[in-house]
């Protein structure tokens, strides 16, 4: 496939988007995904998408809590096969829990990376096992139901189910573009998608705690 080159105004928009992203999240995001969004949606379409994304984020934060919302978005991306959103959003959710409770989230880029390779029924089981940790009861239920909705095994029955379906639909739309990075990204390169990424001291403490936990599990 010949990749359509961006126009001057599209290239300027990509630079603006990356700069805003850096300002908001404190992270340097790869240009490929921003370029693909602009190429795919056009400048106007992309800003309409961003505008609704902000509103949808607020809705998810209100209904599910910010940390669970981020983790569920990451898992919706995992189901679609995209590591870029899968790793980035689960990292964001894990940082939020670490800041709030000082504990490590069982779902994070390194714990989900192997799940990409498993069969769906195995992924469902593994996630259910991971989320038996006390304090993650809501997320465990939401994850199980969201996966069942994704697989077509459950029709949404409650308002919460409708929101979970909305997340699946919204991120099916989003990963159309992020898949170009999401197909080969490794967990080490996960980027946060939230202002929590600007807290570098928190990130340092989190990385150290996670490295210690992973080392203990390996021994």
């Amino acid at each position: 496939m010949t990749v359509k080159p961006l126009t001057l105004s599209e290239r300027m928009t990509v630079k603006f988007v990356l700069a805003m992203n850096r300002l908001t999240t404190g992270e340097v995001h790869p240009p490929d995904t921003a370029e693909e969004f602009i190429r795919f949606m056009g400048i106007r379409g992309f800003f309409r998408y961003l505008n609704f994304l902000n509103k949808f984020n607020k809705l998810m934060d209100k209904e599910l809590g910010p940390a669970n919302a981020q983790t569920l978005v990451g898992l919706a991306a995992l189901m679609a096969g995209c590591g870029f959103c899968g790793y980035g959003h689960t990292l964001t959710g894990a940082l939020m829990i670490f800041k709030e409770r000082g504990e490590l989230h069982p779902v994070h880029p390194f714990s989900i990376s192997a799940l990409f390779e498993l069969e769906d029924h195995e992924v469902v089981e593994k996630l259910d096992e991971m989320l038996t940790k006390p304090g993650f009861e809501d997320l465990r239920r939401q994850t199980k139901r969201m996966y069942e909705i994704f697989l077509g095994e459950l029709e949404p029955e409650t308002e919460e189910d409708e929101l979970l379906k909305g997340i699946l639909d919204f991120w099916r739309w989003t990963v159309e573009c992020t898949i170009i990075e999401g197909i080969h990204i490794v967990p080490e390169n996960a980027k946060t998608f939230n202002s929590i990424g600007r807290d570098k001291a928190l990130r340092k403490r989190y990385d150290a705690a996670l490295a210690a936990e992973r080392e203990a599990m390996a021994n």
Partner: protein
Amino acid sequence: MTADFSFEISASKGRHVTICLGGDLTGGEFARVEPNVREIIGEQNGKHGVLWDLRQVRRCDLSARRSMQKLQSEIAERKLRTAYVASRPRIRGVALWVVHTSGDKLARPFANHDQAVDWLDTSRGRMEEIIHRAKEIVSFGERKGARP
């Protein structure tokens, strides 16, 4: 060639073509499948869809992915509808990458075989499907107070 790679192509009159792949998919293995698929889609003359059944595929290397993309571009030129069904997230990601980068608006990945077959029987394109879903989400968001 990998020992456990398998493929089977079936096409019944008036129905879609099903290409079942299994095991570890490499560029070399995919090269064995390609001529058969080209021959069948040539005979199809744009009438029926193509179902890639990747539920038994465990891994797919970069070379196979690129060959799949090239073949999907050819399928797109013939305006044949395509569905990919895969039961591993990684393989669905590969399918999404293939349909997105091939620019085929009539191709989509699925986790569920019935949904994949339904897709072949509808007339809506992937972009129309995404826009339709986006409208549903906007409508849901509005009901919940997230006005776009």
